[in-house]
């Protein structure tokens, strides 16, 4: 069974495509369907999709799908929580699997749940979830570091959320000059971090500064994330610099997309990492107090991979 009734399909579709194999997601077929947008979903498919909704948790059901003696269905997660009683008719639940419904689901094709955000794609029931976890039209997650904030939305919404709910500092401009101060830098057992949002080039960037333990050594790390997708992040480059007493450390790189979590970027070491001793050295004075000045800037430039250069190889 396919989603479309022949009546609503554009005349452009050939007869061949109506006999489309369920597993064949032909692009032309998909793009034609997408012109209908949300209105494509019509009665027969909708009722099947509704049948696949668990009556208890209302999530989509995936194999194994269960049923009671009277035929009421239930998802496997909820089955473990209903004390062997069907929530619909209160009869005793067995271990009956509703294979027929699982098979019907195989032939169901549905639009991506982000169709209202612009995603034109249609997927078979069993691959829809995977696509939706990677869909480019899906909203962004709140980029705040620390405990995972569940808020999602577009960038404009998230910037306001960071400002109002997380009290994050906002700056306009593409250069920065921050001084990180910590009176007792030896207390770095728990990870501590700061986030500042920069607005430039019509985009938003998140500058993270964090103290944590790298293995057993205390370090500080600064890195930039871009509020947008990786593809767009590649249009920008940023630099970070620390220094003092005749020494200077400069990092230059591409901001990571906020699609990559703060923790993932931190643990990949993709930024400016300074050992605590060196950070204290740069702080000057007695070197007991952290007063680290970090300067930096963001500019529009794509980084190219290094071209091959003929230089001697030295094996370690």
């Amino acid at each position, binding site marked *: 069974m396919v989603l479309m009734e022949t009546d609503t399909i554009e005349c452009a579709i050939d007869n061949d495509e109506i006999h489309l194999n369920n597993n064949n997601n032909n692009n032309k077929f998909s793009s034609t369907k997408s012109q209908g947008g949300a209105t494509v979903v019509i009665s027969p498919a909708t009722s099947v999709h509704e049948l696949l909704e668990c009556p208890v948790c209302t999530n989509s059901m995936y194999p194994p799908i269960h049923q009671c003696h009277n035929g009421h269905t239930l998802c496997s997660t909820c089955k473990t929580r209903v004390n062997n009683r069907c929530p619909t008719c209160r009869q005793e639940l067995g271990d009956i699997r509703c294979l027929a419904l699982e098979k019907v689901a195989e032939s169901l094709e549905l639009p991506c749940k982000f169709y209202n955000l612009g995603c034109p794609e249609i997927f078979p029931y069993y691959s829809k979830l995977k696509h939706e976890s990677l869909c480019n039209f899906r909203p962004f997650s709140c980029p705040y*570091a*620390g*405990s*995972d904030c569940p808020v999602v939305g577009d960038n404009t919404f998230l910037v306001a959320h960071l400002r109002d709910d997380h009290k994050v*500092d906002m*700056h*306009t*401009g593409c*250069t*920065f*000059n*921050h*001084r*990180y*101060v*910590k009176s007792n830098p030896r207390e770095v057992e*728990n*990870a*501590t*971090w*700061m986030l*500042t949002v920069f607005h430039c080039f019509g985009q938003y960037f998140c500058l993270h*500064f964090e*103290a944590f333990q790298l*293995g*057993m*050594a205390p370090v500080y790390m600064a890195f930039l994330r871009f509020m947008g997708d990786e593809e767009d992040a*590649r249009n920008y480059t940023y630099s970070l610099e620390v*220094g*003092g*007493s*005749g*020494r*200077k*450390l*400069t*990092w*230059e*790189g*591409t901001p990571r997309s906020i699609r990559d979590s703060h923790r993932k970027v931190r643990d990949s*070491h*993709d930024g*400016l*990492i300074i*050992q605590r*001793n*060196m950070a204290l050295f740069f702080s000057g004075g007695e*070197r007991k107090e952290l007063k680290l000045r970090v*300067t930096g*800037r963001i500019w529009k430039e794509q*980084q190219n*991979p*290094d071209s*091959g250069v003929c*230089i*001697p*190889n*030295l*094996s*370690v």
Partner: protein
Amino acid sequence: MISGEVEPRITDLQIQSRVHELLDLPVCTNQMSSAIYHYQCPNEHTQELNNENTKKKPYNCPHSGSKCDGTGDIPWLLLHLRNDHNVEMHDGRSFSHRYVHHNPKHLHHATRMLTLLDCFGRQFCLYFEAFHLRKTPMYIAFVQFMGDEEEAMCFSYSLEVGGNGRKLTWQGVPRSIRDSHKTVRDSQDGLIITRKLALLFSSDNNSNKELKLKVSGRVWREQ
């Protein structure tokens, strides 16, 4: 929340920010290297500098630290390094090397490479080393001056490592070879990166987890 992690205390870390045009960081030529890494009393330090014998004291071989007992003046050391340790000498103030480490995960002990640089009528030691800093695998590169600290302070050097759209640059003052290689390494007074970052730099030119680090740099005279 992942178990083991505690809610971060943002009150511990304050931020003082001023948004400026980016200013060049003034390179402070107030050389304080020894004072920090040795925590020497200023008086002791001054004594050592004023002691003329210091300048005539032979230098220890900078090659393997404690393993080689060779001592002598600079010309003797240069011959010793070339003949006995097969160390290469490069002419010129700038350099570019690629370090290849075939099985970076199999590194169990520190491994280092030494190259000599000849410029400004003087010689410098360029070290590249793979080691563990409290169990975390790291790489460090730094330059030491074949001579005394007084003269070392007249120079600066930069080291740059990068790849895969990223670049890290270190600018520093060469330490005198009066400081052992190990002292300089343990004070982290050089370009230091984790193995993870090194592999990130390497990952655009190889799919296997082989380390291919391009390190370039130059030496120059201050003033």
